[in-house]
């Protein structure tokens, strides 16, 4: 018979001080998932300006890209996407039973790699905004 770990009620966020690495990974995956699905709807709405006219699309994208806050939000979006991708790979590995004993370490690795990629991307994202 398979054994499973009793994680308690993770939906009770008041217990956050007791959360282990796997629980934080679960919460971060949900949070980044909500952000990404919200962004997907926004993204299609912005790109839909192409159905109005060619000039409207180009002007909309270029005026959004001229705003510093949009560039900051793009770095945020990249961070959220990178974490969701890396932790998603970790979850697929867990589902396949690969590296179960290192699932906490792979969560920390995903966090560190996300931070490094986000910081390294800043020069590309802010290029030309000033």
């Amino acid at each position, binding site marked *: 018979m398979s*054994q499973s770990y*009793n994680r308690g009620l993770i939906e009770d966020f008041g217990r956050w001080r007791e959360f282990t690495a796997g629980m934080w990974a679960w919460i971060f995956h949900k949070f980044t998932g909500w952000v990404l*699905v919200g962004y*997907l709807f926004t993204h*299609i709405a912005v*790109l*839909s300006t192409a159905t109005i006219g060619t000039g409207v699309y180009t002007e909309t994208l270029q005026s959004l890209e001229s705003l510093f806050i949009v560039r900051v939000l*793009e770095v945020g979006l990249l961070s959220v996407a990178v974490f969701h991708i890396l932790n998603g790979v970790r979850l697929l590995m867990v589902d396949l039973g690969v590296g179960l004993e290192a699932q906490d370490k792979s969560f920390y690795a995903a966090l560190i790699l996300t931070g490094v990629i986000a910081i390294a991307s800043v020069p*590309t994202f802010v290029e030309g905004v000033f």
Partner: protein
Amino acid sequence: MAERYSSFKPGGTLWLLQRVTAAFLVIVLAFHFFLLHFVNHASEITFAGSQYRMGTLSYYSLMVTFLVTATFHGVNGVYNALVNQGLDGTQKTAVKWVLVVASALLIVQGIRTANAFAGISF
């Protein structure tokens, strides 16, 4: 024996599809970000550039598949998160159908946009 925590039904199609789309999206989302932020900078994107990319059948079909899989994966994820939080009964059914309709609208609008770039009109 420990309780079962997943909101998915054991052996269900949705469970499998969530993972199959995840494996696809890991690659395509990384490609999408890399192409449109690092190869082509977002600030330099114009209708002509998007039209050029979408004019290729392989890119157009990849983006439409990306839209459909991302919508399914995202909306199914939201539904499961809500079920995990205790959504049940009539509310669960109502939320399910709102999400199904929202997904259908998003996919239709996304394909209309892709067609505008590719010069496809009906």
